[in-house]
């Protein structure tokens, strides 16, 4: 490995540091606090550096880093408070029986969105962030999370609905209603 250009720190940084803001944002929105997010991201880079010689140049560096990120996040999560039970939300009958279309406020503030997102159980939040913020395909998410494609799709669908419900709940707490004067979480549109 001596003088192998693949292990030069400059090469490593050139390939991986452009993804640093995206890794941090994802970690920050999934970890319990900023200190934990920083620890996770730091570990991701040190782990990636250790195995960089196995990374094939020209392949998807971002996907590779996110796989490491989620591995580290899941490792950290074993020490967190118990996560929500996923099974309760993955009941196919639950998804098929309703089409939830909760109205959402016209103006969505960043702080309200972050609050609503924080209330979405983490298994769903992970998939929503990868799909809607990081623009990963369903297949890439399945590979990153190591779950079947069907699970990705059901978690994504459920996660987006939960996010809308939380947004509507926050808006209602401010007294914001639909244009017709209905509470956002109220009667069918």
């Amino acid at each position, binding site marked *: 490995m001596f003088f192998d250009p693949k292990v030069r720190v400059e090469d490593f940084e050139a390939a991986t*540091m452009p993804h640093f803001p995206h890794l941090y944002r994802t970690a920050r929105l999934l970890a319990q606090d900023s200190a934990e997010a920083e620890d996770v991201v730091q570990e991701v880079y040190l782990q990636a550096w250790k195995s960089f010689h196995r990374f094939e140049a020209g392949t998807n560096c971002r996907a590779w880093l996110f796989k490491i990120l989620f591995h580290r996040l899941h490792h950290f999560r074993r020490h967190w408070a118990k996560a929500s039970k996923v099974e309760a939300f993955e009941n196919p009958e639950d998804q098929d029986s309703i*089409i939830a*279309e909760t109205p*959402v406020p016209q103006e969505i503030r*960043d702080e309200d969105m972050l609050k609503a997102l924080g209330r979405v159980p983490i298994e769903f939040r992970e998939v929503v962030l990868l799909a*809607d913020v990081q623009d990963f395909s369903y297949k890439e998410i399945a590979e990153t999370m190591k779950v079947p494609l069907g699970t990705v799709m059901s978690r994504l669908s459920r996660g987006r609905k939960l*996010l809308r419900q939380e947004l509507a709940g926050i808006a209602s707490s401010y007294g914001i209603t639909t244009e017709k004067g209905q509470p956002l979480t109220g009667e069918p549109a």
Partner: protein
Amino acid sequence: MSVLNFDSKQCEWIRRNLDAYLGNELLVETTSDVLRHLESCQACSRELETRTRVRDALRRAAASQVPPEELRQSIQHRLRERQRGFLGGSRQLAWAVALAGIVVVVLGGIATQHWIGTLRGRRLVASVLALGVSDHLQCAIKGHNYPNIANPPEVLRKKLGPQYAGLLAVVQQNLPGFEVLEAHICSIPGSPRKYIHFITRGRGTILSVILTRSEGEQLPREVAHRSETPGRVNLYEAHLEGMNVAGFESKGYFGFVVSDLSQDTTMQIANALAPPLMTALEAGPGSTARLDLGAVPRACPPPART
């Protein structure tokens, strides 16, 4: 939670596929079916607009989570420490370092001169590229001067005016995977400089294409990257205020591509976009006649959040 009772089975089917449509996960045939339905169904179109709005708001909120610069520095510091630890035990490295030291001493004078020149060049490039970053941040990111659903091309052409309308097609054709949400002539309050600003969305982020008069300034070629496209354009890059920017210069103009995508991606996009934009800028009786940014009718529109 609201539960909608659809009059049409078709609406129910569309809404089950709407998220996959937004995520570009549908087959071409299914996408056509969804598009056809959306053209005729206001309720489903509204639902699509709502889902797009929530997704865009989520992206904005996520983007507000700015990584601390100290974390980046700490990571880079630890990486270098580890590299030193790994290489420190190698006798081969010691010989290599000694040899390199001799070479450095011999070539030091020449290298230092070259380095100083390059450093000055990079500073100049950074100061010019900062113009593009500033406009992207002020108008697109902080000002949010774009709609969630792209303005129709005829509206954008009208906003650009007859002199600049032709550039819209050049941007659309050479920016695959991005949709042009907004195009206008823009100015930063307190600055006489005007910009042609295309705000586009793709790859999970907002990307700006910005053109402005160079006012006689020229970028140093020794720090440029040569474009790989047939036009062989000089491209310049910088990372400023959390954004990656790629710049190029044409006859009397600077062009910028700005986003938070990786530097490589931003350069690749500029690599494809710069030659046709330069051709358009330099075509006709003269670029100043085609794009006289000194006579701009209006400043950047006020934030138009929906």
